[in-house]
């Protein structure tokens, strides 16, 4: 494999001025009047051709700054960015930037295409395909100001990805639009990845990072905290997030996540929704106690059309420490269609090898390929499990003494 992108000791210093006057003074005299803020410091990585690197980190960690530097919209303070070849680089940092509301979708295509370096004749050749992908056949000759935000975003994404790039830089692009659009985004990005496109992908969706990326880079306060295989980096990052969450929950009473996830059910454009999550053998206590040695969780959902969805269930210790996650697409299990058109699946954990403690269940609904999260009920069932063993711990691992 050849190197597609090499980033070496990349640094970005933002100069913070106390007032516009200080900024003017610096501009006119050349004397420094700023306070330095290092948004990125000594970040290095090498991406081989066809590799997908997920960039993760907290808000303000420097992820977007890194992507903007690699895309060329910001200039680095020091360090080097080297690309292995003159191939096309596409950066999806914001969808729809450059569209003029008074012009039609078709007119905007030509101009926005030129902005991202697609020649007129190439746009003309790709126009029909872009419009079809954006599903805007009926609206393409209307001014963009009459479009919904979803339509604008669809057109912009279809344009940005109309030409397969050698290097694709994506900043949270999957967080926009409805689920139908998100699904198309993920599928197109995945097809680029399979075709050998090098991808730099920044997302708060750890699920998508897991699905798409071969490696991950965790940026923390502007510095590369960990770079390596996706699972290893995500595990470290999740531990860090749990620690932060635990600290926060100690400091303030947080609103229950369950309420948030259920409220999202009514959002428009949703292609699927979980309708119920039940765990068997829970008594009526508060919290309920699991009265069986087995834990059986049943999740029901409705999905638009005849798409066969996938389900996931996550078991965590209260406080956020993960015990296990299972998903139908990973285990190659097909959920069962119900006579009323809904889908249902039950996962059973026989002879639960847990130690005593308070546990929480979350349920997830995915698309048919397991790429897009249609719905999630986070921390929806809380229960107490009393194990026979009096010893401390989380799970009883298979073991033998010698």
């Amino acid at each position: 494999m050849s190197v597609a992108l090499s980033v070496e000791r990349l640094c970005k210093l933002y100069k913070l001025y106390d007032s516009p006057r200080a900024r003017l003074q610096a501009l006119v005299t050349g004397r420094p009047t700023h306070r330095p803020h290092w948004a990125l410091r000594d970040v290095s990585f090498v991406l081989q051709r066809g590799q997908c690197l997920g960039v993760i980190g907290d808000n303000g960690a420097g992820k977007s700054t890194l992507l903007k530097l690699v895309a060329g919209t910001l200039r680095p303070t020091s360090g080097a960015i080297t690309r292995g070849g003159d191939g096309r680089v596409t950066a999806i940092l914001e969808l729809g930037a450059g569209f003029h509301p008074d012009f039609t979708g078709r007119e905007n295509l030509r101009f926005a295409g030129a902005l991202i370096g697609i020649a007129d004749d190439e746009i003309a050749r790709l126009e029909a395909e872009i419009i079809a992908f954006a599903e805007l056949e009926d609206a393409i000759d209307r001014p963009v100001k009459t479009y919904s935000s979803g339509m604008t975003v669809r057109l912009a994404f279809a344009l940005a990805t109309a030409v397969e790039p050698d290097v694709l830089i994506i900043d949270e692009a999957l967080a926009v639009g409805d689920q139908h659009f998100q699904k198309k985004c993920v599928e197109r990005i995945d097809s680029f990845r399979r075709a050998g496109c090098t991808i730099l992908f920044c997302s708060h969706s750890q699920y998508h990072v897991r699905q798409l990326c071969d490696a991950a880079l965790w940026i923390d306060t502007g510095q590369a905290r960990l770079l390596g295989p996706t699972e290893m980096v995500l595990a470290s990052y999740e531990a860090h997030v749990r620690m932060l969450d635990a600290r926060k929950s100690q400091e303030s009473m947080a609103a229950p996540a369950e309420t948030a996830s259920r409220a999202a059910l009514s959002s428009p454009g949703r292609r699927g929704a979980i309708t119920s999550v039940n765990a068997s053998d829970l008594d009526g206590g508060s919290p309920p106690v699991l009265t069986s040695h087995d834990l059986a969780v049943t999740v029901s959902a409705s999905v638009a059309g005849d798409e066969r969805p996938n389900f996931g269930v996550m078991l965590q210790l209260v406080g956020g420490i993960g015990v296990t996650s299972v998903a139908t697409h990973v285990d190659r299990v097909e959920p069962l269609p119900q006579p009323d058109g809904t889908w249902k699946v039950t996962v059973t954990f026989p002879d639960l090898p847990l130690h005593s403690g308070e546990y929480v269940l979350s349920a997830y609904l995915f698309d048919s390929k397991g790429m897009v999260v249609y719905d999630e009920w986070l921390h929806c069932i809380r229960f107490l499990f009393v194990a026979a063993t009096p010893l401390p711990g989380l799970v009883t691992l298979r073991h033998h003494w010698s």
Partner: protein
Amino acid sequence: MHALTAECTALWRARRLLFLMARRDLSARHAGSVLGIVWLYAQPLLTIAIYYLVFDVVFRMRLGDGAPTQAVGAYLIVGLVPWMAFSDAVLRGMISLLEAGALLQKNPLPTALFPARAVLTGALIYLPLTLALVFVYTPMHHFGAALLLLPLLVAALLAMWFLLAYSLAIVAAAVRDVVQIVGFFLGIGAFLSPVLFLPSMFPPAISWLLWANPMTPPVLGLQSILLSGAMPRAEVWLGMLAWLVALAVVLDRLVDRSREQLIDWL
């Protein structure tokens, strides 16, 4: 001049996009109107028509000796057309980076494109009007050889507007107050130039103020070529050269000092 050279190189590489942006800017200015592009030319044409009717037809006002023409209307029109173009290009160019902030933060585009677009758009509106003036006024002196210098004068004029607009755009990105201050100076600038008065009418004590206006040399040059059919005097060329060099040095410094952080300011 390293920074400025790099900017000009980037601009040259993006010249196709520049023309596309200028065309779109023109279309955007009349988007939604019935008469469309006509409005872009109607405004200055109406101004020219009013000056001609009022000063040269109704009142038949005349200038004294030493003027490039005796007709007050013609004198005002030849000065006002470049002044209107200058005001338009500099004002739009000055705010061009502020307006393009979101676009520049998301797309790797040369910043010079935006002030250059403002100047080019201004040129696309006012150059045809200047050409019209050539056909109206030069027959009076039988298309003299001085007319051959008009393209050079216009090229220098456009270069000067670009340098000034880009410099102001960078300063405006740092301090927004500049937009208000420059707007005020553009408002009074026509009074401190040979657009409305003959240079000889200025009190000697403040005549230096004329040369502090970057539009004084080119306006004098245009008046010479279009109204007298005479070669512009050496001071016109020297004045323009001085302004071009000064603005190039200033812009080079500004680009160099702001290069790393300009996008952050938008």
